Structure formats: C-alpha cells, structure tokens
C-alpha cells in the first residue's frame, strides 16, 4: 500500500544498559506517537527499560555520498593534524 499520509520514520533505540541511541531501522506511521508504538512492537518486543526516538525521515539531513571523498578523506596525509608531536611530561598519567 502506498501511504501518502503514512510517512517514513527513522527509529533510534537505546537498549537497557546502553549508553547511546543507535539507529535500528524505520517504520511507517501517520504521526510520531504511533511511530513510537510501532517501533516498540517492531524493534524492542516491549522490553522494559529502553528509550526510543523516532524522527521523520524527511527531517534528517544527510551528507552527500558523492562528496564522501572531499568530506571524509581526512587528514591522513596531513601529519601535522595528528597529535603525535607533543612531549608529555612524565608526571601526567592516563593519556
């Protein structure tokens, strides 16, 4: 069924004991409240102690894959960006 009034939502889940929300997939829903319900049914099996975020897919701005080269080919060849030229005083621990 094509769903003009059931847009796509991206689902982010923080599992019990998890530190951050991870993208786990997407659902179709007419609004955020129902998107959370559906996400709970589809991605959590209603385990207790989880946190869900849903975001309308249209609201997500993504980087352009075509631009991945210039955007991410990082500072591999720019050694001056690598923090390897510092003298660490002996007294400093845990770096």
């Amino acid at each position, binding site marked *: *069924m094509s*769903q003009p009034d*059931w847009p796509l939502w991206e689902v982010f889940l923080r599992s019990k004991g998890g530190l951050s929300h991870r993208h786990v997939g997407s*659902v*179709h*829903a*007419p609004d955020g*409240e*129902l998107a959370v*319900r*559906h996400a709970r*049914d*589809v991605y959590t099996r*209603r385990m207790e102690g989880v946190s869900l975020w849903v975001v309308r897919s249209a609201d997500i701005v993504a980087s352009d894959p075509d631009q991945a080269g210039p955007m991410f080919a990082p500072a591999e060849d720019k050694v001056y960006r690598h923090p390897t030229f510092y003298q660490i005083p002996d007294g400093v621990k845990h770096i």
Partner: protein
Amino acid sequence: MPSLPTIQPQDEARADRASHAGTFDAPVADDHRDAHFDYLLRLGDDALILGQRLSEWCGHAPALEVDLSLANIGLDLIGQATLFLDHAASVEGAGRDADALAFRRDVLQFRNCVMVEQPNGDFARTMARQFLFSTAHVLLLDALTASADPQIAAIAAKGVKEVRYHADLSADWVIRLGDGTDESRARMIDGFDWHWRFVDELFAMDAIEERMVAAGIAADRAALRPAFDARLQAVLDEATIPVPELPRAVVGGRKGHHSEHLGHLLAVMQHLPRSYPDATW
C-alpha cells in the same frame, strides 16, 4: 471429521447433584474445586478466544505495522490463556493440560464471554471490541494480582503489563478513527454499536464468582465498573463518539451458552487435534 460428544459423563454427574438439578441451565458447580476450575476456565477462555480472533487478522491489517500490533496482542493473550488453562487443568486434577482444554472441549464447555467470540468485522469493529475488553481486562488483572491463589496472582502480575499496552493501543485507535474522517467515525460508531450489548457480561457476577471472591481468589467484577465507565467516557469524549444507553445485555457465555459464532471458530481452531487426536506437536 468426528465431533466430540457435547455433553460429557462428568457434566451429567455434576448436573445430577447440582442444586439446580432438572432446570434448563448448565450444571452448577457444587464444590470449591469445581468453582475454582470454572473460574480459571473463564479467565483462560476469554484470552484464548480473543487471541484466536486476532490471529485471523494476520496479513490482512490496514498496514504492516498494524499487522504487527494485532499479532503482538494476540500472542500476549494466547500466552495468558496457556498459563490460566494449565493452572485450571492442575486444579481439576484429571490429567488434562492446556492443550486438552483448548482443543478437546466443545461449545457448551467454553466459559468465555460472548464479546470475545464476535467476528472481527472491519478494523473499527475489531478495535471497539479490543478497547472494551482490554479496558475491563486491565482492571480485572490488576485486582487479581492480590489473589489468594498465588498462581493467579503471578499470571495477573505478568499479564497486567501486557494488557495495559493493549488497552492503550486500542484506545488510541478508537480516538483516531472516531475523530478521523466522516467514514472512519461512522465505522467506529457501528463497531461500538455491535458490541454494546456484550459489555454488561464483562462485569456480571454469579454464584461461582461470588464464592471465589469470598475465598479471596477472584476479584469482584461489579466493583470494577465505575473505573471502566469513567475510562470509557473519557476516551469516547476524545473520539467525539457518544456513549449510548446500553441495550439489553446479552449474557450466557459463562454458562456455555454462546452465540452461533463460537462453534465455527472452534471448528477452525480444533480441526487438526480433532482429526489426529493422538498426535504430539
């Protein structure tokens, strides 16, 4: 396919020694264990039959996500039914188990309320049924967490979390459809109109339940009514649907007097175990 005899010898024995012997109605339980068993059948059968109805939606829901919601609710209910019926079988002490109770009883031995055996109809009618049943169900299980029967208390404690979700989800859909388009509102009203006559049975008490309440095992259904009515009014107000004067109640499920729908449901549900009674699966 061979059918089961509808009246079993043990039914006749109970009927003969029942206080109402000779009257039309089904046998009346006349000892504590019979009442306890009967009460557990009511709890288990409600969940079993509604779970079976919900399974019929599988693959037919308005959207994939709704399909999942309905299947989820159905699975929760079948899980509760299994626990209640297994416990019923152990109380009965006749060597039966949940499968024997689910698949080897006929219409007259089922103790579910008439509402849960109603055909699904359209999505609105299914949601009306779910909302009415789950709203009462959550109150009942909540009260049963204090049951003197530790097994009932444990099953209720597990089930009440599931049913709270069922009640929320169905209330949400009642509001969406009622306060949606003209057509969805008309269908929601029709869906409720189908089910109003079955509401009173959810709160009906009889001698068996009174006895179980006195023993601390059951919850007084009648006492749950005000909370149900308040929730019903709140949700239907938000859905812009009027709550009518309820029509004359249809009851009888607790005695095995069912609508014509249950026999067909059982024919589908029990077909394989009846055809191959000795099979293990």
